[in-house]
Every structure is written in structure tokens, then in C-alpha cells.
């Protein structure tokens, strides 16, 4: 023991599960997807197993599909804000659309999620590439993929500048001089990018983690810049993201026997094909054997798991796969730090404006 690689594990809490027909076979009531309780229950499952984080996808348009799939959703960041004060260990990484949302609002919203969760916030920065979203804003044309990714990287850059625009300890409450803040510790960011400019400083002080964790999907060839990269296509990903934590996307269909898992998968496929992307169908123990092997042979830091059906596959994963990984020394026994950066081993975020 001890020599095994420690994996990082995140779980997607989208809809009633990853499979389009999950909502039909899950015990979850469809209307529950529009309540905080649903996300809290699943985040608590992940937290009890000391997983690194949960994610929640989002866009500024309806999910594609027809009457038979889950459509409609609440704002992901606000949904995670609504569970932040009543969870204590789990990292919270909501998706934020960077193409239409103001970067200034993104920065303060993620910082505020970090305050409400006491250092467990992240953000999955995702550009928008749909005509539907353009039509909802009515002020720009659809950007090309390369431009959308470049703008995404610009947003990632400027939100960190805004987080840094208040140095730690800028609030001094100095009675003798009557100063509430030390304005020398506040900085205009004066950001002039290709896509927008921002004066700064932020209206929100630097959040507990300094930099909440920034994640991106690494599947676009133009994606760059982030602490964490989530990717289905892992070939070549390590070379493209040498410094990031690289987590492979993996859908999971679990059952006590191999046969039962295959049957569960078939039952789902009778409704609709399985979504594209890597998936695992088998036993929780089999998955525990597979994950360290996959990580070692592909240079991965861990996995972003997508339970096919919630809570079923998440419950089996946390009840059985996680203990098996722990027994093999491949996963922590309990949280060893308080923040999401701690969980991911990201270290302290340097402030780009503070004097060294």
C-alpha cells in the first residue's frame, strides 16, 4: 500500500442520471429535478464517500431532444449555492456558460459560491456554440469554435485577475486612520482582451481559496488554460495539458453481477441508445480494479464519473467501489483538507498582484 496512485474522483449530478431514459427507471420524481433537495441528497452521498467534487452541467438553452428526455433545468451555479451551506466536504463545480454571461458576474458568483461553501467552489467554464443561445441574447453571431474557446480562455484569465484584485487582508478596519480597507491592496485589473475589456477591481474580496478551482472540458482541440481538465478523449490529452489535473469522463452502469449490469444497460438501451463516450458496465468491484489500471496506463489523475441512473449507480459506486479503492490504497479514507484545492492537491493559489 501507499505506493498506489491516489485517484481524484468527481461525479456528474445531471438530470436523473447520464442516460436519457434514466428519469423513467429512477425512483426520483421528475419534478424533484427542480428542487435543491434532489442535488443535496446526491451531493451528500458523494460527500459521505469523500469524493473530490460533484459537477452540474448547464447551458442557456433547453437541452436538445423531444418529450421523452429531461428538458429544462435551473441555473447550475445557483443550484450548487443552494446546497453549499448544508454540505461540508464535497467540492462543488457548476458549469458556467462563458460566451454570453458577463465575466464580471461569473467572477463574483464563483467567489461567492466559495464563500458560501467555505472554500469548496469550482467552475466548469464552457463556451456556447449553439444558435439557440445566440437567439436568447440576440446581440452576437455564433462564434466559431476557435473563437469561442479563445474567449473562454480569456474569461478564465480575467476571472482569476478579478479574484486577485483584492489581496488577502485588504480589509483592515483601521480605527485610527478611519480606513475600512487598505486601498493599496486593491488593484484595477485593466484587462484589455480580444473579446472584452474590464476595469475592475472586483466588488467581492478574494475568496477563501484565492482561486476557486477552474475546470474545462478538454475535448475541443482549442481548449486550454485550467486547473482541471475533464476529457472523454484521453489520447494525447496529457501532452496537451501537461500541468492540469486530468480526469477522464466515464459513464457507469453497475450491478452486483456482471450479468445484472449488462441487463440494466440493455433495459436502458431499449428506451434509447447509450450516449457516446467511454462507459463501464459491470460490478462495483470490477470498476475498482479497472480505474487504477486505466489511470496508470493513460497518465490520468482520476475520473469524472457519470452515473447512468441516479441515485442507483452513484449509491453502488460509493457503497462498494470506493471502499474497494480505499482498501487498495488508491483513494483517501477521509478528507484530509477542508477545501477543494486541498482535495485535488492544487496547493495555494498565488496572487498575481501581491508583492512577492
Amino acid at each position, binding site marked *: 500500500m501507499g505506493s498506489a496512485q491516489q485517484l481524484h474522483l468527481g461525479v456528474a449530478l445531471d438530470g436523473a442520471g447520464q442516460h436519457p431514459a434514466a*428519469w*423513467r*427507471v429512477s425512483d426520483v420524481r*421528475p419534478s424533484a429535478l*427542480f*428542487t*435543491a433537495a434532489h442535488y443535496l441528497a446526491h451531493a451528500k452521498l458523494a460527500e459521505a464517500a469523500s469524493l473530490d467534487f460533484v459537477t452540474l452541467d448547464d447551458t*442557456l*438553452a*433547453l437541452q436538445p431532444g423531444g*418529450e*421523452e*428526455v*429531461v*428538458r*429544462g433545468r*435551473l*441555473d447550475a*451555479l*445557483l*443550484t450548487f*449555492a*443552494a*446546497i*453549499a*451551506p*448544508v454540505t461540508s466536504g464535497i467540492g462543488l463545480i457548476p458549469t458556467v456558460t462563458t460566451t*454570453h454571461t*458577463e*465575466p*464580471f*458576474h461569473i467572477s*463574483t*458568483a464563483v*467567489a*461567492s*459560491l466559495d*464563500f*458560501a461553501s467555505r472554500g469548496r467552489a469550482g467552475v466548469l467554464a464552457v463556451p456556447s456554440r449553439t444558435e439557440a443561445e445566440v*437567439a*436568447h*441574447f*440576440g446581440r452576437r453571431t455564433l462564434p466559431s469554435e476557435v473563437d469561442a474557446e479563445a474567449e473562454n480562455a480569456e474569461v478564465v484569465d480575467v476571472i482569476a485577475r478579478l479574484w486577485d484584485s483584492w489581496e488577502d487582508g485588504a*480589509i483592515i*478596519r483601521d*480605527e485610527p486612520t*478611519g*480606513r*475600512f*480597507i487598505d*486601498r493599496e491592496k*486593491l488593484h484595477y485589473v485593466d484587462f484589455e482582451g480580444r*473579446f472584452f475589456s*474590464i*476595469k475592475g*477591481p472586483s*466588488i*467581492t*474580496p478574494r475568496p477563501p481559496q484565492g482561486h476557486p478551482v477552474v475546470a474545462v472540458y478538454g475535448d475541443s482541440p482549442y481548449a486550454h488554460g485550467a486547473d482541471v481538465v475533464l476529457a472523454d478523449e484521453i489520447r494525447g490529452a496529457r501532452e496537451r495539458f501537461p500541468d492540469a489535473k486530468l480526469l477522464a469522463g466515464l459513464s457507469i452502469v453497475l450491478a452486483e453481477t456482471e450479468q445484472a449490469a449488462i441487463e440494466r444497460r440493455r433495459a436502458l438501451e431499449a*428506451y434509447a441508445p447509450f450516449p457516446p463516450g467511454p462507459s463501464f458496465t459491470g460490478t462495483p468491484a470490477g470498476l475498482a480494479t479497472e480505474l487504477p489500471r486505466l489511470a496508470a496506463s493513460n497518465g490520468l489523475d482520476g475520473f469524472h464519473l457519470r452515473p447512468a441512473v441516479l441515485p442507483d449507480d452513484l449509491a453502488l459506486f460509493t457503497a462498494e467501489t470506493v471502499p474497494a479503492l480505499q482498501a487498495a490504497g488508491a483513494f483517501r479514507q477521509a478528507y484530509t483538507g477542508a477545501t477543494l484545492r486541498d482535495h485535488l492537491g492544487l496547493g495555494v493559489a498565488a496572487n498575481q498582484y501581491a508583492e512577492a
Partner: protein
Amino acid sequence: MPKQVKLAAHFPGVNNTTVWSDPRSGSQIDFSSFEHLARTAERGKFDFLFLAEGLRLREHAGKILDSDVVGRPNTTTVLAALSAVTTRLGLAGTLSSTFNEPYEVARQVASIDHLSGGRAAWNVVTSPDAWTGQNFRRGGFLKREDRYRRAEEFLATVRELWDSWAPDALVGDKENGVFARGIGRFVHSGPQFDIHGAFTVPRTPQGQPIVIQAGDSDEGREFAAKTADVIFSRHGSLESGKEFFADVKRRLPAYGREPGELLIMPAATFVLGDTEEDAHEQAREIRYQQVRPATAIQFLEQVWSRDLSAYDADGPLPEIDPDPDAEPLTWGRVRHEKDPLAVAAKWRAIAEEKKLSIRELVIEVTARQQFVGTARQVAESIDEYVQGDAADGFVLVPHLTPGGLDAFVDDVIPQLQERGVFRSDYTGDTLREHLFSR
């Protein structure tokens, strides 16, 4: 039954009201502070908690203002988080109609309404200035005269989105595989917004979340009369409150609305003492803590538009006149005084008559302490204002964060309840029910 008092708790953000030097003054940022105020307000059966918004740090004479409380978290994020630690309290947030888009605001407010089970409110403000615009992609694109044009169409568009899912659109029929049917379609074509598509949020528990308006001009009042559920006003005194109340309520019939459909809630501060003298003594001390020498000089500089740093705050007002043509020295504060020469003349007259120093004058002219006295006296006054149609209720602004409402809830609320003018428990679940069910 006497008219029932409406109450909201203001969490002071960036401001010069909070006495930050008091040892009891806590963080204005940490979530625990918001949680404390929200739980206190809910314990007191308040209608809602209220958050203001400012999107750029205030500046004075080219520098970030460092004497007042500075820094605040993101409004919608805080409200969503508060939904986790409260069950009945309404959650009201200020969001500018200038630096946001209708689709986003509709979605955020609707999301909070779902997450809180029907407790969301949006205070629609119009921020016109290009100075704030420097923090946004769209920049300072809005002319002052256009801001209510945008605000009005913005709100109408948001409401179209809120209405776009039929109440029964979320079918959830597992057997036949119908999750949702005929959902969220909208087309809005107008001079400000030309958008179409489908909204992502099902109809919310309140259907229409509560809309608050805070502008004070004629256009602002007209906008409120036409569309808002609540006005947050700055007319807290008995006389100006009555005048404002009458003016706004008079505008309602033109829009086919009853006086009871628009509630007027001025901002109000309060100081509670064991005796009346004690309360007044405390109030005096609080004023001196709020208006420090540097604050007093900065306050004059706002009107004078000149550097007055050489003046002694404990000395007389400057002999020189304001520079009416200069650029304002202060950015990020709403200016309600339009003619600086007239203001200066008025202040000089007051200072002369009452023999006031600069600091004393500033304390005098910014006196905003509405309710000062024992708990019983404060309850009496509030009741008197409400029964006398100076207000429908108040947005209370404590001078201490986060514990400034504790004593009010412990001591004044029972008095109001005894008088039969405030609820002893919530009778509904949604903010709309708190505000409008009889």
C-alpha cells in the same frame, strides 16, 4: 382589522451606515453573517431579506473610497445559499436591468424561486453610468433617458419568460415517456430586445416572482405604478413619506390597479434604548461613528466638486462656492441633489443658524435615524406611520452587521404583535402570500 405592517431586513452592503468600528461589527462578506441576519429576520416573521447591488467600487477624487464598508458578494449566489438555511423568509435581490440580459435574469430569479419554494423577489434598478459599464462587455451603452425604456421592456420580457411554461407543462409520465410537453417557447420583438427561443425553467412556485422598484424620479414612479409589487423608497420621514405614498398610489388607477397592489416600503434605521434618553444618546454616538472627520469632508466634496481636504471637519463650512461645472468627484453613489450652489446655500444657512461645524452639519443633513426610542415607542411610531399612510411597512437598515436586527426582533416585534399589526406566524409559504394575502 388595522392595516398590517410589512417588514424587510436590509443586509447593508457597501455603505456608510454600518458602524464598522464597533467591536460587535462582524464580516459583511462571510456567509455566516448573511445566515445570521436571515435567521433573525425569519425568527421575527419578516416578509423578506433585501440585498442591494453595486457593480463597481465607489471612488472619490480618483481613488477607491476606503472609509466606508467596501466589498460585497454576488447577489443571486447569496440568495440561493440563504434558501438552504431558511424556510419561509422572502429573498429579495437587486439586479440591474442595464448590465444584465433578460434571459439570464429571468433564469436566475426563477431558479431562486424554485430553490426556495416560492420566496424570490427582484429589485429592478436602472444603472445608467458608463463608469460602471467599464466592468461589462456592453460598456456604457445606455443613455440616461433610455434607461427606463430598457428597464420596462426588460421586465416585460422577463415576465414573458416566466410565463412561457404552462403550469402543467412538466408532465413527468414515466410510463409513456413524456417528461415535459410544449415547453418554454417565446418570441419577443421590441425596440430593446429582439429574442426568441425556449426558456429552461418551468413555471415557478410563485408563478411570477415579486418585483420591487427603487427609482425615485417621475419615470421611476410611473414604472413602479405600472408594474411593481413593492417600491423601496428613501422617503422615510412622516411628511415626505405621506407625500410619496399619496403620489404613487394616485398613479395606480391609470393602470387598472388597486392601492393595495403596490406596497410602499421606505428604508428606515432604528436605535433602541432602555429609555428614550438612552436611545437618543446612543443615536448621537452612532452618528459620530458613521460620520468621521474624513467622511464629513468627502461628503462636502461631493457637492462642492472641489478638493476640500485642507479644511478642518471641526471648523466652519468653506467660504468658497461649489464648482457647478466640474466633473463629480464621487462615483458610485446615487446623487439626488441636482443644484450644488443651492444645496451649499441651504447648508450654510443651517450651519449658521445652529452654529454647526462641518462634521455636525453633515450629521444634521444626513440624519436618517427614523425610529429612536424604547421598543414600545418604536413599535408605536412604526404603527403610526403605517396607519397614517406614510408607508405600508419598512425596509429596516441595521447599523451593525450581522447582529443589528437581534434586539428589534426580540423587543419590537412582540410589541407590534401585541398591537395586532404584525403577524405572529407566517400564514403562507410564498413571499407573495406574505405580502398580499389578507
